[in-house]
């Protein structure tokens, strides 16, 4: 394919994940000439079964499933807690939605006002009400299967586009225990078709949602990349942007490399950086200049600062009776009951009731030194009666957690790699302990023999990169405006979870999509 710049482009979008492709699709629909540059490849949809096989076979790691490249994706992890960046992202058209779980809930109202309502963190410059119309649009764009049965969710004006997936058999077991404990369970909004919609299949139950959906029932951003192309946008893959050339007030061109070793300049009237919570600040920092010696759009000094993720807390065990796990790879029940109890000492968290607790028989079969009857005996002994409850926990923004450039290492184009400096805070630890406490009460009520726990000592990230180019009204303490335009440059927008001032404890992609729609409206108005 040709990877030469598009003449006369109105908009150049960097990054073909959900934020970038939604912006591109919207602006192309408005008649603008749009070009999208992505560092990774365009994946052949016909290869998805092979990728599924990689996800099952033990010789392939998670980054292998989507052709991770250690030189291209090199990074450094520093700080108290190691960060497995390349397990947390996919580079290519579709971005990390290619391997995501697909859970899409709105942030709660208090999440937009953490400082005011919980006494910690910062307030967003917008409220839930400001984003509510775009949330509804985002649910239509992604195709969300959900129900209005969550008594703790923020108000909504219309049903989800598709019916929720019904609860699982194991949900029914949990429901009895939760009823005793007066814990309300409810459905999960999934960006996964519960029925055929817009040319995409209904879910057929491959059970490998993370990291690959062969049927295409799970939303990924190739949907919007292809939609944008149908409207006339140009998507150029394997075109990593090296820097943004700029003057004092505006970006002039994105300089990108191509596989043939060439470099090109893509000029445009407006630029949208949508590379995720790590690569977006990295590109800005790589684009330093005499005007912006600390990095482009970094007058506040906050580019790369306040890196956040959600933390996982979990517990599970064995029930001694069939629980019917691993038939599907998604969740059908959660509880947000404790979410809005959050204050300065304990953060918000949500509970997730697993449909894939314990080992998958086929994955077990491919490891071990047995076969024949011995193997079958092992599989039967280890599959079938597992239960598990997970939780996502908020991490507060802190300048102690950051993404910067590691000048001592370079990637395959000679650029300093991103350094992730990540640590945990006491509120988060207390929140994990609180989630564990409730998880234990549920499992004990259920009668399970608890066999594992993920607590504050062994917690890990949920792969939601947030906070590194914060949104705000004051240029001194934020990087972008409430419309996601950089304070410093009049034609440069940042889209994605890097603009979240706080993260709440909800999976971020629906909010990413809603904000992308909001940004597209602002960009359209500016052109």
């Amino acid at each position, binding site marked *: 394919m040709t990877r030469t710049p598009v003449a006369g482009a109105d908009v150049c979008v960097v990054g073909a994940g959900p934020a970038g492709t939604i912006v591109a699709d919207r602006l192309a629909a408005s008649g603008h000439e749009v070009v999208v540059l992505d560092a990774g490849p365009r994946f052949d949809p*016909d290869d998805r*079964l*092979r990728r*599924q*096989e990689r996800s*099952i*076979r*033990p*010789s392939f790691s998670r980054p292998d499933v989507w052709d991770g490249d250690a030189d291209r994706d090199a990074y450094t992890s520093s700080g108290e807690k190691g960060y497995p960046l390349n397990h947390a992202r996919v580079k290519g058209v579709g971005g990390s939605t290619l391997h995501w779980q697909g859970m899409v809930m709105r942030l709660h109202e208090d999440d937009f006002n953490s400082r005011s309502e919980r006494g910690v963190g910062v307030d967003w410059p917008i409220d839930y009400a400001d984003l509510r119309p775009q949330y509804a649009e985002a649910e239509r764009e992604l195709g969300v299967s959900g129900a209005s049965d969550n008594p703790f969710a923020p108000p909504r004006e219309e049903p989800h586009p598709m019916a929720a*997936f*019904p*609860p*699982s*058999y194991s949900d*029914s077991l949990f429901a009895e225990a939760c009823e005793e404990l007066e814990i309300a369970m409810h459905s999960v909004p999934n960006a996964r078709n*519960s029925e055929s919609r817009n040319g995409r299949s*209904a*879910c*057929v*139950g*491959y*059970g*490998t949602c993370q990291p690959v959906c*062969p*049927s295409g029932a799970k939303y990924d951003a190739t949907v919007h990349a292809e939609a944008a192309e149908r409207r006339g946008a140009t998507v150029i893959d394997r075109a990593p942007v090296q820097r943004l050339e700029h003057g004092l007030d505006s970006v002039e061109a994105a300089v990108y490399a191509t596989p043939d070793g060439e470099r090109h300049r893509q000029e445009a009237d407006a630029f949208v950086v949508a590379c995720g919570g790590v690569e977006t600040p990295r590109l800005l920092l790589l684009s330093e200049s005499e005007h912006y010696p600390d990095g482009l759009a970094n007058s506040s000094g906050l580019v790369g600062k306040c890196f956040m993720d959600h933390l996982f807390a979990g517990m599970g065990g064995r029930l001694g*009776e*069939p629980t*019917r796990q*691993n*038939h*599907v*790879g998604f969740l*059908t029940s959660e509880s947000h009951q404790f979410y809005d109890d959050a204050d300065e000492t304990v953060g918000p968290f949500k509970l997730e009731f697993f*449909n894939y607790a314990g080992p*998958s*028989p*086929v*994955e077990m*079969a*491919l490891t071990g*030194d*047995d*076969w*024949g*009857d011995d*193997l*079958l005996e092992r*599989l*039967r002994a280890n*599959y*079938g009666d597992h239960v598990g409850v997970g939780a996502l926990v908020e991490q507060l923004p802190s300048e102690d957690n950051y993404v910067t450039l590691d000048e001592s290492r370079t990637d395959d184009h000679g650029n300093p790699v991103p350094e992730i400096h990540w640590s945990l805070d006491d509120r988060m630890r207390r929140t994990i302990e609180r989630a564990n406490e409730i998880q234990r009460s549920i499992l004990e009520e259920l009668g399970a023999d608890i066999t594992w726990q993920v607590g504050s000592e062994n917690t890990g990230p949920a792969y939601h990169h947030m906070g590194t180019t914060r949104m705000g009204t004051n240029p001194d303490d934020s990087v972008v405006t409430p419309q996601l335009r950089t304070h410093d440059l009049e034609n440069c927008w940042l889209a994605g979870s890097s603009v979240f001032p706080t993260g709440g404890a909800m999976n971020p992609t629906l909010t990413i999509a809603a904000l992308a729609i909001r940004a597209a409206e602002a960009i359209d108005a500016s052109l």
Partner: protein
Amino acid sequence: MELTRRDATIALAALGTGGAAAAGLRATRERDEPPDRLDDDAVVSAMVALAEVLYPSELSGIEPFVETFVTERLEREGHGEALRATATDLNELAAAWHDAAIAELSPAAREELLREAGADIADEAPDGTTAERVRYFVINELLMALYTSPTGGELVGIENPQGHPGGTDTYQRGPPS
């Protein structure tokens, strides 16, 4: 419990086959592959013989299942050539250590061969040592075919095993009474 050709077709639908390019690949293979490489019929026979020790004894219908599955997997670009080469290497070990082709060995000798090759304790690796390749292209190939199929899943108690597009009903059902 009986395996069928249909089970193999279902497993192939989940794991992928050679696809439209298969016929062209076969023509290329016939020209380029070493002359001492096992032909496809011999590979299938060897895989059937090995499946008879790798699969649980309560299964019947192994031969048509493996025949259907392996014949298609041999057509898969890259994978087929490596499977053929690995089966040839294992067959040479069988000849050297047991004076017979894999398909002619007793079940006990077939199992012994896999262990002598070190494939029982090797980690699978498609580009690895002989033991690692036997683990990948022979043992795990056959185990994956079985345990992603509904019949293989039912042996363990799951009608819709991971990798099989068995719909969204079974996860809602309770255990069979």
